């Protein structure tokens, strides 16, 4: 498998250097990685930023090959067995678990059947 991947990469660079086909190498800069991490509510050390920039770039570079596929007039698949709009009667049913049992799972203090979280501000 390693061999195949390297061959593909070679072809990739070959295409860049010699033909008119434009293949964009996606590269995530450290600043982009910091921004994505912020959106995803993660904090990263500087060492992690460097590591993830490299690894995420390699992954994005690999998935670039999807752009070669002609998907004109192709519908997107979101539900693979063809289901859509599954509805049920809006009837009162016994819940499998109580509110108390679910609250008990929280690591934070419970006050008046509510979870006390850190302040939003």
């Amino acid at each position, binding site marked *: *498998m*390693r*061999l*195949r*991947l390297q061959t593909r990469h070679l072809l990739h660079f070959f295409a860049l250097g010699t033909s008119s086909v434009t293949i964009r190498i996606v590269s*995530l800069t450290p600043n*982009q*990685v910091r921004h*994505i*991490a912020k*959106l*995803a*509510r*993660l*904090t*990263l050390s500087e060492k992690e930023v460097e590591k*993830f920039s490299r*690894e*995420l770039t*390699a*992954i*994005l570079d*690999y*998935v*670039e*090959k*999807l*752009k*070669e*596929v002609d*998907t004109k007039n*192709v*519908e*997107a*698949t*979101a*539900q*693979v*067995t063809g*289901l859509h709009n*599954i509805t*049920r009667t809006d009837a009162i049913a016994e819940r*499998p*678990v*109580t509110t108390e*049992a*679910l609250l*008990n*799972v*929280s*690591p*934070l*203090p419970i006050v008046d059947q509510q*979870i006390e*979280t*850190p*302040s*939003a*501000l």
Partner: protein
Amino acid sequence: MTFSLTIAQAHERLKSKKLSAVDLTRACIERIESVDKSLNAVVHRNFDRALDEAKKADKKGVFDHPLAGIPYLAKDVFCEEGVPTTACSNMLRNKDFIPPFDSTTTKRLKEKSAVSLGKTNTDEFTMGASTETSCFGVTKNPWDHSRVAGGSSGGSAAAVAADECLFAIGTDTGGSIRQPAAFCGCVGLKVTYGRTSRYGVLSMASSLDSIGALTKTVEDAAIVLGTIAGKDPLDATTGDVSVPDYTQILQKGVKGMKIGLPKEYFVEGMDPQVEAFVREAAKVFTAMGAKVVDVSLPHSPYAIATYYVIVPSEVSSNMARYDGIRYGHTETNSTLSEVEGRHPLTLIEYYEHVRSSGFGDEVKRRIMIGTYALSAGYYDAYYRQAQKVRTLIKNDFEEVFKKVDCLLTPVAPTPAFTIGAHTDDPVQMYLEDIFTAPINLAGIPGLSLPCGFSKDNLPIGMQILGPQWGEEAILQAGNAYEKATEWHTKKPAL
């Protein structure tokens, strides 16, 4: 040995009272205690409760259902009421999540008096192909302790291969049941998307996740499937499709069956031993009266790229729930402010602290790739394009199943690899799923079973694929192969 019985064999003994559920359960417990220190397949032991359940089953004395009194292990992503469920992540590690309810699968097994022994190791939140991302450490391959058991259901596969239980349940999003089954030399069944309920199972990628069984024989897989399959009002994506008695169709054989060999699954770079054994298996089918033909699934080369856009996108959304509020690890606000030595954390800082310290690197990678792929301006180029290519991959399978009943392919390009071989190269690890991920993208069922051994005495697996809802055909073909060969009878020396 009692622990090495199959479900069918144990059932016969239980029914005729030659064996008690307690003795059977005790045999598995003793086996776990003797071999698991070196394997690390079982991460939570529920032995007292298991023995109580077994006692109850003996007292009741009714062993009509084939799973009554049969001990099993569940991958540590199945919620079981009162049993710690960790996804092998530091996010939920220290009994941080003790679910107050049962997954539909464990509930259905409980209703038939199957005996839950505990939980098995998995890659963190099922993200991996080697069980190396588990916070509890890697599961060793029972055939060679320097190698991985595969993943993500590596604990379940190793436990079945090492006779620590009679069967195990697992999840398969891109190969996570089939690849470890192949690496450990047991049977792994990935069902049609929606054939089994996902309710109460910690989600990875909701449009691909499926629940299935790891067993010692194809017959056993049919027994477990018949018990856990079927529509569930708690999972709206389960199909309203009848569940046949799978054990009744097993003996039908493959005479007249048409089996396709997709050329894209025999590629340069794969281990020639794997290819040779799968082609050898094709000859066994021919000898039994099946017709084997060459077919093509032209979009296969795009499957991994498609998969590794769709999965992280869905992961980034599914992992958002781990915010340390409803569940999550237990550092409270006050201890956090002490650690930081400054003002109490704000809510956002709290989220960031909980998530950064709770999630491991592979989970972070997927969350970030998904966040990027779904962000404004990139959505069409990544997620939407991947969903469209997914349609083409699905269409390839639909076309080919107009011509053949089943497909026969390798499960993984190589036998079990050495621990640490891919840990520094995520893309290389992703390519482990090259023959298994397309099956999840198409939503079809796949059965992995042993078909040979490498020169290093490592199991090699093959995969039989069927059309959506076509579990019968693959179980039928798998059973016929198993009856004609002896690979499944080989056991690791432990």
